[in-house]
C-alpha cells in the first residue's frame, strides 16, 4: 500500500529539512507513504482545509482590496470583488511618499508619516522584547523544569497566577513606575514591563523543557558541566523550536501592541508603527476613520511579520520535533 501515488512532498517548501540545524537530528517525515493515497476521505479533508483557508484569507484580501480603493469610491463601490478603479495612492501616502495636498485629496488628514522610522522603531521594540523576554523566560522555565530548590512549585504557581492578573491593574502602576524611573519616551520604558517575563512564556517554555529527555543532560553532568553550562550549551541548542515559537509569538504580540507604546512612547523618536497608524483610525467622535489609509497601513504593518513568519516558518514547527534530538 505504499510508495504508489504522490510519493513526493507537495512542492510547497517543506521538503528541505536541511536548514533546521543539528539539534533536531533525524526526523521522520510524517508524510510517510502510508497516508498518501487519495481516498474519498482525504478529498473531503482537503476540501475542508481549502474552505478554512478561504475563510481565513478572504477578510485579509478584503483589507488589501479596500486599501486599493480610492477614497471617493469607498461607499459607492463597497461590494465588488475587485475595486473598479484600483489605486496605489493609499499605500504611497501611508508611507509618506505623497505631498500633504495629495494625501488630503486621497482622504487622509495630511499628518506627516515617517514610515521608515516607525518601522525601524517597531523592529527595535519587538526585537528587544522578543529576544530578551525569550532568554529570561527560558532561564526561568529551565529552573522550574529541571532545577531542584525549595518552594519551586509554589513559586511557579504564583508566577503562572500572573496570567490571571487583569491588565487594568498593571497599566497605571507600571506607567507611574516607568515615569518615576524617567523612562517615558525611551525604548527602555516601553519594553520594561514585558522584557523580563510574561507568564505565558515561562509557562510555555517550562512545559517544553519538561519534555526534553534527561539522558542528554545526565551525560553532560557526568562530564562535570554545571547548571549554567548545561542550560547554555545543551538545553538551549536543543530547544530551538520552542524558543523560536515563543520568540515569534512574542514578536507578533509586541508588533501589534498599541496601548502601552501609545502611553509611554509618544515621541517621534520612539513611536512605533501601530501608534503611528493610529492616525488613520477614527480621530473624533463624529468623523469616520480614514478607511482606505487604515487598511493600507494595516496591510503594510502585517507584511514584515508575515515575511518573518515565512522565513522562520520552515524552521519553526519542523524543529519543534526536538524529542528525537541527540
Amino acid at each position, binding site marked *: 500500500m505504499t510508495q504508489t501515488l504522490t510519493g513526493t512532498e507537495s512542492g*510547497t*517548501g*517543506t521538503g528541505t529539512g536541511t536548514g533546521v540545524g543539528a539539534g533536531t*537530528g533525524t526526523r*521522520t517525515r*510524517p508524510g*510517510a507513504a502510508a497516508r498518501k493515497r487519495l481516498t474519498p476521505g482525504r478529498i473531503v479533508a*482537503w476540501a475542508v*482545509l481549502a474552505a*478554512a*483557508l478561504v475563510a*481565513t484569507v478572504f477578510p485579509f484580501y*478584503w*483589507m488589501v482590496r479596500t486599501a486599493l480603493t480610492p477614497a471617493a469610491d469607498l*461607499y459607492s463601490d*463597497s461590494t465588488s470583488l475587485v475595486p473598479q478603479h484600483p489605486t496605489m495612492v493609499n499605500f504611497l501616502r501611508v508611507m509618506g511618499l505623497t505631498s500633504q495636498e495629495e494625501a488630503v485629496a486621497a482622504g487622509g488628514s495630511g499628518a506627516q508619516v515617517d514610515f521608515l522610522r516607525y518601522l525601524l522603531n517597531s523592529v527595535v521594540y519587538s526585537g528587544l522584547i522578543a529576544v530578551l523576554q525569550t532568554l*529570561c523566560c527560558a532561564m526561568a522555565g*529551565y*529552573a522550574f*523544569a529541571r532545577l531542584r*530548590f*525549595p518552594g*519551586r*512549585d509554589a*513559586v*511557579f*504557581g504564583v*508566577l503562572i497566577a*500572573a*496570567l*490571571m492578573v*487583569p491588565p487594568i*491593574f498593571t497599566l*497605571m*502602576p*507600571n506607567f507611574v513606575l516607568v515615569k518615576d524611573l524617567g523612562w517615558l519616551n525611551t525604548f527602555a520604558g516601553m519594553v520594561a*514591563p514585558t522584557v523580563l*517575563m510574561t507568564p505565558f512564556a515561562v*509557562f510555555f517554555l*517550562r*512545559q517544553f523543557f*519538561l519534555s526534553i529527555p534527561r539522558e542528554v543532560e545526565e551525560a553532560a*553532568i557526568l562530564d562535570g558541566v*554545571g*547548571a549554567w553550562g548545561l542550560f547554555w550549551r545543551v538545553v538551549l541548542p536543543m530547544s530551538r523550536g520552542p524558543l523560536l*515559537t515563543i520568540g515569534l509569538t512574542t514578536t*507578533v504580540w509586541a508588533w*501589534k501592541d498599541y496601548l502601552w507604546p501609545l502611553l509611554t512612547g509618544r515621541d517621534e523618536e520612539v513611536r512605533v508603527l501601530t501608534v503611528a497608524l493610529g492616525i488613520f*483610525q477614527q480621530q473624533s467622535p463624529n468623523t469616520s476613520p480614514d478607511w482606505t489609509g487604515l*487598511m493600507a497601513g494595516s496591510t503594510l504593518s*502585517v507584511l514584515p*511579520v508575515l515575511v518573518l*513568519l*515565512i522565513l522562520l*516558518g*520552515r524552521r519553526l*514547527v519542523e524543529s*519543534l*520535533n526536538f*524529542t528525537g534530538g541527540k
Partner: protein
Amino acid sequence: MGANTAVARPRGPAGPASGEAPAPGRARRAPDDRKAAWLFLAPALLGFALFYAYPTVRGVYYSLTDYNLLAAPNFTGAENYQQLVTDDQFWNALKVTGYYVVVNIGSQTLLALLLAALMHRLTRSVVLRAMLLVPWLVPNVTVGLLWMWLLDTNLGFVNHILNTLGLGTTGFLSSPDWAMPSIAAVNAWAYTGYTALLLYAGMVQIPQYLYESASLDGAGEIRMFTRITLPLLRPVLALVLVVSLIGSFQIFDTIAVTTQGGPVGATRVIYFYIYEQAFTYFHMGYASAVAVVLALILGVLTAVQMRLLRASRSDLA
C-alpha cells in the same frame, strides 16, 4: 528517534503543584540547586515583582477603597464588593462574557484542532501554515474595523452575498441577538490559526511510529485521532485551553471598536465594563473589585481545567 521518546513527553499540563517527580533509580544531580536556581529566576522574578505582583497588591487594595483616580483613595472595606452583588450590569456582564467565552473558545478550539489535525496528516506546507496565521498578524483594532465593513447591514460584503442568495440582510453587529455571536466569530477568525499552530506544534511531537503501527492494525484516521493524537496532545491542549480561556475572558479591543457594549448591553462584556468603570466613570475602586472577582473566577476555572486535564494524563504515555 526511539520508542522511549514517547514516555519522555511532558507529564501532563503540570500545573502549579506538579513538578517533575524524580524518577527512581536514575543518576541524580545534587538534590539542591538553589543557588543556581535563584540566579536563573532572578530576571523573571524581578519582572514579576515589579510589573505584576506590586500592581496586583495595589489593585486589590484599591478594590477596598473609593479610589476615583483623581483624588487620594479612602478605605471603604468591603463596600465595593457589597455593591457588586446587587449590580445588574455586573451580572449581565458576567452572563454576556460567559456566552462569548463558550461560543468563542468552543468554535475556535474545535476548528483549530481540526485544522491542526488536517495539517498534521495532510501536508506540512509552510505557506499554508503562514496563510492560516495571517489573521493573527492583523492589529486588533483593524480586525474590528475590517469586520465592521464586512458585516455591515447595508454596505457589507457578507450581507451583499446573503442578499444575492435571497437570504435577506442581517444586522450582525446591530441586532442584540447577533452581536455577541458575531464578535465571537470575528475573534475566532483572528485566533484560530494561531491556536491551530500551537496544537500542530504539539502534534508534530507525537512519534510517527504510533501512527504507522496503528495504520498497520487497520485503524482509520478518525480512530487514530481519538486514540493517539488527542491523548498525547493533552499537555499542549491544556496549555492552549488555559491560555485562550483567560484571553477570551479579557476580550476588549474588538468590542471597543465595533459595538462598544451595545446594543442595549448585549456585548458589554466584563472587561469592557471594568474599563468603563475605571476610565469613563472614574470608579477605579469599584473597577478593581470587579477585576478581583474576574481574576478569582479565572483562577478557579484554570485550576479546574488543570485538574481535569491532569487527571487523565496517564491515558497512553
